């Protein structure tokens, strides 16, 4: 049978990886659900409210972007705009060149992965190092993150210990505590050597120009305590209107992402370091990145731009749990990625048009999303778009025969009667190989075709 790329990736997944991903995502989901519902009488009300705030931002970016820019400038930050991935990389490189900087430490930025920053800088002789433990391990392995907030969900301690050993971080030792200590010892000196700290932003507040960065490990904090120049790479959709919206969003983000009351480090940065403070950047740059977002904004799927990258929809998704993040072949995996990744490609949409089909439309992602994004609806719209653009759809079962039956009452009735034969036929003899394979592992429920028609007839009388 011909299959789609995501099916092939999922099928090729080693059992070990599948187990890691399954356990990791499930525990994330269980914790989150408990905390959110223990803490709020009506968590759905919060999700709807947060969704409305972000939808408002998305639909008013034409006023929020200039307002934010003005605020950032007034705070003493420099503002850069980048239409494309290339332009964003150039902006980072330009800032570094102007300072004669050769080393950069990164924290909490998916946009840097999206724009391929590491590659770009390495080619130009600049060292850029991931500081989140998981991202650091991914970097050592020349791998890619497989989850939005748990980048190495697909790896186990044995694989990590081997990576450390190979990279000169001590002899093989797979105790998680020891792995963490070694990373701590190694990375703190890297922060101190680096000229530039680059972070993403969970939120940027238009009214105050505050850049909000949230981490548990404190790696972003270390970037901002040790380096002299701070670069923020942020997608244009990350805006919140008012400071007070943070009360809503920080509460939801921690609970939805990891089931915490609050993430360990929440940083609110609105400019270069204060007078008298010895540590931290004396220069702050904010790069506002488009890279396909305005294309998304122009579609009926613009709701996906509300996303706050909490990872909840990944954890709950049955397809993600079985296939792992890499099967999505994009920086953003899972349900959010299935919508966002093909859209961000703009005209090259067909390359990832299989992703919106990787969903059973069970609706779980919508139910957990802290900004209430109707992901299943968006997936349907994208399937429709793929159909309209004539993207081939290998692996989709042909509906032809079913369509004929369903539109001709006589044919339908006889098929229902014929179906009853299945109850009496030894199915092991059915001459369809696929069906035989299926039957060898399962038992068919008894055929009950026609019951509904009988019931309806009886009722009419």
């Amino acid at each position, binding site marked *: 049978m011909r299959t789609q790329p995501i099916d092939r990736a999922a099928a090729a997944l080693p059992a070990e990886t599948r187990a890691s991903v399954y356990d990791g995502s499930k525990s994330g989901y269980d914790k989150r659900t408990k905390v959110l519902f223990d803490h709020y009488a009506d968590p759905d009300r919060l999700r709807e409210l947060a969704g409305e705030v972000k939808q408002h931002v998305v639909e008013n970016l034409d006023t929020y972007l200039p307002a934010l820019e003005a605020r950032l400038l007034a705070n003493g930050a420099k503002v850069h705009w980048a239409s494309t991935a290339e332009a964003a990389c150039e902006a980072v490189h330009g800032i570094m060149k102007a300072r004669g900087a050769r080393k950069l430490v990164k924290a909490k930025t998916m946009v840097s992965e999206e724009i391929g920053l590491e590659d770009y800088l390495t080619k130009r002789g600049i060292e850029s190092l991931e500081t989140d433990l998981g991202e650091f391990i991914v970097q050592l392995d020349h791998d890619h993150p497989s989850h939005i907030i748990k980048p190495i969900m697909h790896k186990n301690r044995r694989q990590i210990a081997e990576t450390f050993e190979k990279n000169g971080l001590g002899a093989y030792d797979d105790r998680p505590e020891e792995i963490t200590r070694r*990373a701590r010892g190694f990375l703190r000196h890297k922060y101190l050597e680096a000229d530039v700290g680059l972070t993403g932003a969970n939120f940027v507040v238009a009214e105050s120009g505050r850049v909000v960065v949230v981490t548990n490990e404190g790696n972003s904090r270390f970037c901002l305590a040790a380096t002299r120049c701070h670069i923020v790479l942020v997608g244009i959709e990350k805006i919140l209107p008012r400071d007070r919206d*943070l009360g809503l969003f920080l509460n939801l983000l921690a609970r939805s992402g990891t089931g915490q009351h609050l993430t*360990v480090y929440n940083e609110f940065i609105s400019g270069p370091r204060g007078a008298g403070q010895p540590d931290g950047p004396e220069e702050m740059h904010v790069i506002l990145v488009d890279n396909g977002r305005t294309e998304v904004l122009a579609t009926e799927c613009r709701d996906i731009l509300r996303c706050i990258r909490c990872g909840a929809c990944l954890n709950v998704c049955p397809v993600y749990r079985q296939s792992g993040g890499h099967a999505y072949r994009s920086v953003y995996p899972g349900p959010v990625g299935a919508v966002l990744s093909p859209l961000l490609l703009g005209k090259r949409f067909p390359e990832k048009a299989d992703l919106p089909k990787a969903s059973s439309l069970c609706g779980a992602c919508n139910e957990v999303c802290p900004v209430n994004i109707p992901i299943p609806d968006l997936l349907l719209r994208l399937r429709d778009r793929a159909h309209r653009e004539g993207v081939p759809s290998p692996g989709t079962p042909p509906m032809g025969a079913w369509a004929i039956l369903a539109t001709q009452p006589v044919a339908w009735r006889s098929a229902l009667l014929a179906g009853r034969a299945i109850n009496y036929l030894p199915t092991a003899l059915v001459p369809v190989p696929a069906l035989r394979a299926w039957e060898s592992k399962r038992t068919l429920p008894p055929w009950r075709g026609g019951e509904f028609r009988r019931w309806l007839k009886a009722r009419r009388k």
Partner: protein
Amino acid sequence: MTNDREAILARVRDALRPLGERAPLPDFEEGVDLARNRSPLADPLAEFTERIRAVNGEVLAGPAALVESLRARGWTHGYCDPALWPVFAPFFGAPFTVETSFDRTRVDDYSFGITRGVGAIAETGTIILDDATSSSRLAALAPWAHVAVIPRSRLYADLPSAVAALGADPNIVWCTGPSKTADVEGILIEGVHGPGFQAAIFTD
């Protein structure tokens, strides 16, 4: 880059033009819409203590308790904010060595850092630092233990009231318990890049 600015804004305007009505900004009331299922303890300090313990942090009664706790763990070399030192110095005899400036070339020499916090949040057990109050970002981060000394009057009941009090400092950080990760097989490990021990002392 100026071109990119114009180009992005033009694309945004084009994308939004076909929209009829734009989604309005909803309003909410912190006390109603964000209200948690919680019965705040009568004493916010008791609530703070309970919450910081829940994330493996501590409240220390004062300098004497701090010194005892450091001594018991064998943490004898550290940093103290110069403004606090006159009050704390009498409690630190041998075997302690305490510096009042933080030397970034020797980050691993310090096992503790004592700094001033600008506030705290009771409902989450959070310590708040900022650039104007807290003498050194690094000293509150690099040593294994961090202790913040916070005026009791700046203990906020909940997260929305702490947001309302953010103020104009260019760098504010909320710290809730030790730095931690669950990246390796979901197992919780504390003390990743920042402190593995986070504590608060409240002053009147």
